[in-house]
């Protein structure tokens, strides 16, 4: 085992390397490029046996990835944002093929307006596809999650593709100390790809991914995909346990940090959750009983685990780095649906939407979210969802609009 400084992208590439992947269809997109550049360099130098092919689009890339997995090799691929959306037809499609592969998504906000910086709307768009989703908060977790993801995808009771998600910039370009396990140890954890379930061979004619006529067979295949995803909760739990026993790093489906005696918990995913963790530590020092609930697994959604860790709390503050136009935060909706009507569920569920397009969420804002949630508990009234946006930001925005010759008079006169 070596410990070295790696970016999130570097950690993702190491995950693929240690998983001994056979095939890497690729297409470059910021901020994912470093992953495929790293793998290309290893491949060119003969350090890894994987075959890499650059396709002409993400749509083709995901098609090739699924097709290769359907033929019977271990496949790794990676994308981000617009690329994920461009390939979205195939994200849904290859999940329906029931082929195991791992795709890393480096989260980045989606257009319009176009941005290079991070939020979770891209990955949320893939939420209902049948791809399972693991969300990372550190570079170490990225490497480890890629390895866990292969075992999960290839489990005979699951056999679904998995997305490992990391935040652009905040993880992708940020170096942190990462332990790189020995290949020998990985071989014990992740056996060679078993082609038993997916293959095209001359001796065994197979028609994969065929159409259906009528709602009944369609419903059957779709429900079965859902059931496989649901199976993945327990399967994931077992894999995480094995991983923990072997490597000493613990990745439960839901990370619960200082939750036991907490009155209020933050719920959030991704790299900014370490900031929430910091806020928990700081608030605890001032006597406020706060905890952090971080779903690592977003699909399947660990409903029971969430119910358990939040049972008896007074309030939950959900922080969404995404926005569903016309509804609000996606994670907030997920949490609400998991807890509604449960006798032990917290009465107050506040919703905060922030960190869109790479906007920071400051320590002050984390403290303030707890304050707002506390107030709501005292009042017994859940406030409206809150967009994390300050008067200064709005003022700056108005300056930009002045440069863009946006006519504001109309608004001012009608108010």
């Amino acid at each position, binding site marked *: 085992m070596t410990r070295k*400084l790696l970016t999130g992208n570097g950690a993702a590439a190491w995950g693929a390397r240690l998983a001994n992947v056979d095939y890497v269809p690729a297409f470059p997109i910021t901020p994912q490029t470093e992953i495929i550049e790293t793998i290309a360099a290893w491949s060119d130098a003969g350090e890894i046996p994987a075959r890499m092919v650059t396709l002409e689009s993400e749509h083709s890339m995901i098609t090739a990835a699924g097709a290769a997995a359907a033929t019977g090799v271990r496949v790794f691929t990676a994308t981000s944002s617009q690329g994920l959306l461009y390939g979205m037809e195939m994200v849904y499609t290859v999940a329906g093929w029931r082929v195991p592969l791992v795709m890393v998504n480096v989260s980045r906000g989606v257009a319009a307006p176009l941005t290079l910086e991070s939020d979770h709307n891209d990955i949320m768009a893939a939420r209902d596809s049948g791809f399972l989703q693991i969300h990372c908060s550190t570079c170490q977790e990225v490497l480890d999650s890629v390895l866990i993801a292969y075992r999960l995808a290839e489990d005979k009771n699951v056999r679904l593709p998995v997305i490992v998600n990391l935040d652009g910039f*905040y993880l992708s370009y*940020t170096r942190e*100390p990462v332990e790189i396990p020995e290949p020998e140890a990985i071989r014990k954890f992740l056996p060679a790809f078993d082609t038993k379930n997916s293959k095209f061979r001359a001796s065994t004619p197979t028609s994969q991914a065929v159409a259906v006529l009528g709602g009944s067979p369609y419903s059957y295949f779709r429900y079965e995909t859902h059931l496989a995803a649901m199976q993945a909760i327990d399967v994931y739990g077992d894999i995480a346990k094995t991983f923990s026993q072997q490597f000493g790093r613990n990745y439960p489906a839901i990370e619960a940090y200082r939750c036991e005696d907490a009155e209020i918990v933050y719920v959030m995913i991704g790299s900014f959750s370490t900031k929430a963790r910091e806020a928990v530590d700081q608030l605890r020092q*001032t006597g406020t009983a706060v905890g952090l609930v971080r779903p690592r697994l977003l699909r399947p959604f660990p409903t029971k685990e969430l119910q358990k860790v939040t049972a008896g709390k007074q309030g939950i503050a959900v922080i969404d780095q995404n926005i569903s136009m016309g509804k609000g935060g996606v994670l907030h909706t997920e949490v609400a649906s998991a807890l509604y009507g449960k006798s032990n569920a917290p009465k107050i569920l506040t919703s905060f939407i922030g960190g869109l397009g790479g906007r920071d969420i400051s320590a*002050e804002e984390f403290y303030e979210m707890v304050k707002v949630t506390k107030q709501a508990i005292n009042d017994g009234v859940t406030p409206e969802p809150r967009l994390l*946006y300050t008067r200064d930001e709005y003022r700056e925005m108005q300056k930009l609009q002045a440069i863009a010759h946006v006519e504001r008079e109309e608004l001012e006169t009608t108010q």
Partner: protein
Amino acid sequence: MYRIRFHGRGGQGMKTASRILGTAFFLECFEVQDAPRYGAERRGAPIFSYVRASRSPINERGVITNPDLIVVADDSLIPIPAAGVLQGITDNTTLLINGHDDANTWKHRLNINCKVLILPVTEEVEDRAELPFVGSACVGAAARLIGVITEENLVEAVNDEISSLGADLIKQNIDQATQAFELMAKHEGLVKESTSKTPLDYEQPEWINIPFENASISAPTIHAAATSVEVRTGLWRTLRPVINYDRCKNCWWVCSTICPDSAISVNEKSEPVIDYDHCKGCMICVARCAPHAIETIPEQLAQEKEKQTA
């Protein structure tokens, strides 16, 4: 936790500087986070990178807004607001400037009370975008100011991060780093670890509800032509092209046509005129001017001359 920010221009090796310092901390068994701030990473344009280091796991993320040490590789960036060099500076911050002017001059100029140290520019170069080894010198100085990094680990970190450059360049970078390390000996340990903002002393964020504004206002549309002239890309310039009108043949179609930035216009006397607010200093005009009527002057020098004549 230590929080260090490096500011420089694209081409001056700020990403490498943060990586070297990050690796040096790592070799001292610190938990580390280092990252470049990507954006318009263009030669000559302002760029920054940052390093966090702590004995315990680091939970903070993103851009450092409360730096303990700000390292400025190129002092010409300090007065440029867009470069954000002074963002989050307090009296507890240490400001390390690679430049000619002394510390007091900067304190007066910037009206600041923090500790200011000068890393003397060892050799003046014509093109500041190619300031040699400035990144390594900055790291060497920073390492000593922080005081928890040994010279041995500094050298190893430089080696680790630029191993692909070849023996000569590695040696020169190491020399620069260790010289700067020596130079800051009397300030060893000047930079102290700071704590995080606590819930007791934090400033309440002034959240607002953004008002609804209809699409004529709130769509990402620019309702005017050529608003980009408000972006002063002249700040990127490290070399300045200056037209010697005695030699200029008024063949303005050459320099004015080939300037990629439309920064050379022609006046009523058919003379080419350079728009220094926007000229990025690429020097294509210098290279292509047949009568050699455009000279190259280091931007720093040109600005000093301007100040004197003003």
